[in-house]
């Protein structure tokens, strides 16, 4: 287990470094000059001198590598720099907005887990029953709807018709439900299928027969043997989705006019605000890698074969 941990931590650090490279260099490949964009957006007539002055001040004239080193040096001290446009501290701005997006994404994740585990397990155990067939059909319908359309339907029914939850905006926990539900409904079908298939596959395993031969109760077989076996693929795949969930939250934020990170990033993209974009990619990257790391550890705790892999018996 220790060796497994060390290996995973090392590869995590490597991945993070890769993210920082991508965040820094890829943005600079985009063929729009941030200084020009700044002048254009603020409708200031640009002169060569004033543009050069800003370039000098921002350090854009220095060689790329030293710009990168300088940025990384500050990042290690948790200083993400100041926005090129608003002159506000990027770290603070990002984090304060990130929590909103994170709230939506994690509530959505909670919905996904509750929905897919209950429906997935039930439809596997009651295979080919009416319940199984009904969910299979409705899953396809829901999965084929784009999330913004799903959002409109939910807003119309739950918020407008029934008046149960707020229409849009941000502030209370009620504001959290519809956006997260929109996100969750979009991806739950995938997990319902994943859990159902994995459980049914395992029913054919000899160890399930042996469990029956020992007289275990069916619900114990489901919990100890079938569900446990679906956990590693489920966790891995959920962790991979987390990035998508944050991205999806951005779209949902716009539909529900929530002041999350989505709008902020969209504006910064328009302004080619390097500092903000770099910080954002690094933050999301860090988050994504950390979640996958946790998922890997959990898988290794569940399945001893994973933590022994490559260690040699």
């Amino acid at each position, binding site marked *: 287990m220790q060796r497994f941990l060390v290996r995973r931590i090392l590869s995590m650090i490597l991945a993070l470094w890769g993210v920082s490279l991508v965040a820094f260099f890829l943005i600079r490949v985009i063929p729009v000059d941030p200084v020009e964009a700044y002048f254009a957006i603020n409708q200031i007539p640009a002169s060569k001198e004033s543009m050069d002055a800003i370039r000098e001040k921002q350090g854009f004239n220095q060689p790329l590598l030293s710009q990168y080193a300088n940025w990384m040096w500050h990042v290690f001290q948790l200083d993400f720099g100041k926005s090129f446009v608003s002159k506000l501290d990027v770290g603070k701005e990002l984090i304060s907005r990130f929590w909103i997006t994170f709230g939506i994404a994690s509530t959505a994740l909670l919905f996904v887990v509750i929905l897919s585990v209950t429906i997935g397990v039930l439809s596997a155990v009651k295979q080919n029953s009416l319940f199984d067939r009904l969910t299979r059909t409705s899953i396809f319908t829901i999965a084929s709807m784009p999330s913004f359309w799903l959002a409109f339907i939910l807003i119309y029914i739950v918020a407008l018709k029934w008046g149960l939850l707020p229409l849009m905006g941000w502030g209370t926990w009620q504001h959290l439900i519809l956006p997260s539900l929109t996100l969750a409904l979009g991806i739950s079908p995938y997990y319902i299928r994943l859990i159902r298939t994995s459980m049914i596959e395992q029913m054919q*395993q000899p*160890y399930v*027969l042996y469990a*029956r*031969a020992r*007289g275990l109760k*069916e619900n114990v077989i489901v919990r100890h043997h079938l569900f*446990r076996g679906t956990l590693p693929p489920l966790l891995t795949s959920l962790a991979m989705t987390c990035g998508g969930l944050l991205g999806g939250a951005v779209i949902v934020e716009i539909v529900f006019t929530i002041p999350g990170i989505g709008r902020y990033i969209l504006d910064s993209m328009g302004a080619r605000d390097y500092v903000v974009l770099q910080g954002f990619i690094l933050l999301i990257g860090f988050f994504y890698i950390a979640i996958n790391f946790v998922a890997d550890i959990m898988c290794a705790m569940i399945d*001893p074969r994973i933590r022994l892999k490559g260690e040699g018996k």
Partner: protein
Amino acid sequence: MLEVKNLSVFVQRDTEEIQVVQDISFQVPKGKIVGIVGESGSGKSMICTTILQLFRESRRVSGKVLFQGESLLAKNKEEMRKLRGKEIALIMQNPMAMFNPMLSIGDHFIETIQAHVNISKKEAKQKALEQLSRYQLPEENILQKYPHELSGGMLQRIMIAMAVSHRPSLLVADEPTTALDTMTQLRILDELLEYQQEAGTSMLIVSHDLGVIAKLADDLIVMRRGLIVEYGPASLVLEQPLHSYTQALLAVKKENSTLEQLVDHYEEPMLGSLVEWKPGYWVRQ
């Protein structure tokens, strides 16, 4: 104890229904060991899983299986579950595949004990430890081990220790020593015999290996293609087999050839009906 009467088993293969066990009758008296020997595909394993009612949904069964006078085929799912592992325990072949690779030996042991007795995890663990020490298995740390960390022989011994932990009145062993080396085979057979004699358990042992059966069985059933060929006291059947197939089986043992060679060479059709030649000794003639 166990009485099987005119048992036939049918399985669905693709579109047709195949009869894998044909009109078989035998009994396992209390405290006795009955062995079934036959090549693979003779239907011997089918008999084991049918007694335990393990493939209820996918098999059609006719005839009677009486356990302590009660019909097993008439029992419902939950009644059958309560018997399985408690009154009738199964020892299976290929232990490497039978244990769940994600659960430790302790998890397997504890869930087996808790399936039939309402006790806490801690008490179940204590029982598991007692059981392991009775079978001279290294106790404390073996419970934390995972199946892939142990040898097939070790897993088979654990399987036996687990099977007898509820002191079943009938032990069904389906190829308990197949795929194990000779020394381990002997050790496992000794342990089984020792337990059987000490507890007075009835036992049904199934194997393709006549040597295994010869070592344990009081009565011997020879099967081929779902039919009984010869059935009688083991000493008589082994000493002077009447049916040519049994003779061929014994010859395999003597000549050290393989069972596959026998299957290839023995081509006589299974004709005639089962006749009681001596009291308690049937042969197909």
